[in-house]
């Protein structure tokens, strides 16, 4: 345990001492939260104006709720987790390219110590990031006068834990397989895919068709949905979404552990 805590502590410090980690893991998601809330308010104002011009008895236009804070909070939290994946990838990839990992291979550390050493601190960062995102969302909800239940936010946090594990394990997988030069490019593809096909920036259900099917095949959409439903304390459809994220987390974890062990064995041949 001493080895794991020493190595975890090192990795935690390595990440939090990189100014870019604050910019990407906290700054960017929080900026998006505020920007999208401002956009949502603008949309609602337009919708109200349109309603005022309608003849009596005419159907009111549907307002877009995707950027409303109760929907946005869960989506932004998943979006933020993709940056935790990026920093997990970069920490491992840099250790590999800079021979730091080789030095540690010559110590009594085992593969399990390395895996836990990389994943435990990033898991802590992921939880902290979700808490900060939800705390900021709660403040925004008070400002825009939309109810956001603290219990719902707590349950949304718990709903997001499998997604956090999955993202971290993606980070371990990419950091094992790719160099510190190649990994950021690959991670940016995953970040784009997760936010776009996770339904963070658009309502996948209202689009329907092939687009919705693609979203449903990938885990990100289910992570966002589980968080949004928990946030709204609506558990009628919550279970399947949560179970899918749990299954994805298990599969990616197994894949990452096998890949890391194989790569370590290959490095020591």
């Amino acid at each position, binding site marked *: 345990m001493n080895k794991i805590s*020493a*190595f975890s502590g*090192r990795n935690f*410090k390595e990440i939090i001492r990189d100014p870019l980690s604050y910019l990407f893991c906290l700054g960017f998601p929080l900026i998006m939260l505020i920007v999208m809330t401002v956009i949502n308010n603008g949309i609602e104002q337009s919708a109200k104006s349109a309603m005022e011009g309608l003849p009596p008895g005419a159907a009111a236009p549907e307002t877009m709720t995707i950027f409303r804070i109760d929907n946005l909070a869960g989506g932004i939290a998943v979006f933020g987790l993709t940056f935790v994946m990026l920093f997990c990838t970069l920490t491992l990839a840099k250790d590999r390219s800079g021979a*730091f990992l080789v030095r540690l*291979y*010559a*110590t*009594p550390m085992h593969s399990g110590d390395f895996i836990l050493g990389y994943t435990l601190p990033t898991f802590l960062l992921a939880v902290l990031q979700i808490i900060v995102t939800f705390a900021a969302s709660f403040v925004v909800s008070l400002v825009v006068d939309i109810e956001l239940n603290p219990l719902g936010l707590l349950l949304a946090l718990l709903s997001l834990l499998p997604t956090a594990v999955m993202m971290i394990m993606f980070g371990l997988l990419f950091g094992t397989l790719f160099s510190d030069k190649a990994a950021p490019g690959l991670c940016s593809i995953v970040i784009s895919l997760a936010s776009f096909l996770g339904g963070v920036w658009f309502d996948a259900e209202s689009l329907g068709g092939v687009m919705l099917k693609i979203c449903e095949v990938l885990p990100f959409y289910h992570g966002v949905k589980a968080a949004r439903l928990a946030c709204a304390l609506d558990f009628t459809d919550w279970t399947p979404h949560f179970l899918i994220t749990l299954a994805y987390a298990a599969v990616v974890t197994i894949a990452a552990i096998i890949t890391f062990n194989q790569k370590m064995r290959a*490095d020591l041949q």
Partner: protein
Amino acid sequence: MLAIETKGLTKKYKSKTVVDGLNLTVDEGELFALLGVNGAGKTTTIRMLTCLAKPSGGECSVCGHNCVSDSAAVKELVGISPQDTAVAENLTVRENLSLMCGIYGFSPDKAKSRINEMIELFNIHDVANSRAKTLSGGWKRKLSIALALISEPKLLFLDEPTLGLDVIARRELWKVIRELKSRVTIVLTTHYMEEAESLADRIAVMISGHLAALGTLSELEQQTGESGLENVFVKITDNFGKGESK
């Protein structure tokens, strides 16, 4: 007691033989220099002795422990300062040392005492609280060796420890290595002949994975009829190329 023993140690990567039937012994307390041009097999030999690579043939042992079958014991006995400095860049010097103490399972008291000892030995008080990424090449090398030494190894591998350092930094590091001689067995690889000449008790010359020569400087001078390690090294390399040397 022998610190290192290799018998027919061989390493092949696919069809390429990098180390070919290496037989050598290093006594405890010795400072042993491993010389050779790039690709001679020095680093691969060190990798096998530190359990970072598995031999394709033959065997090697450290302080009587086989590097393959008893790698856990070997890892407790060796420290390595790799060619790349390999330090945690965002940690301070003190935190880097503390990390290694944690990895070797030292108690907080022992860790504190070892860290202070290393800071004293390497005279790194001024930078003890500086992050590794802000250190000059010389300081980083010192830190790298301190990281290898903090676990109290019986055998210390220094893979080109002064590579890229200026003359002053190199001489400073030589001073540290001389001080270490009495405490631990050291295997040093280097391209600087004056470094091996100044520090080593015995010198081995590797060429294309083979052990081409082995002995003290005076023995090698006698064998080749040359004076000075640089001339000796060139002669051994030439002779090996002509097939006159083993």
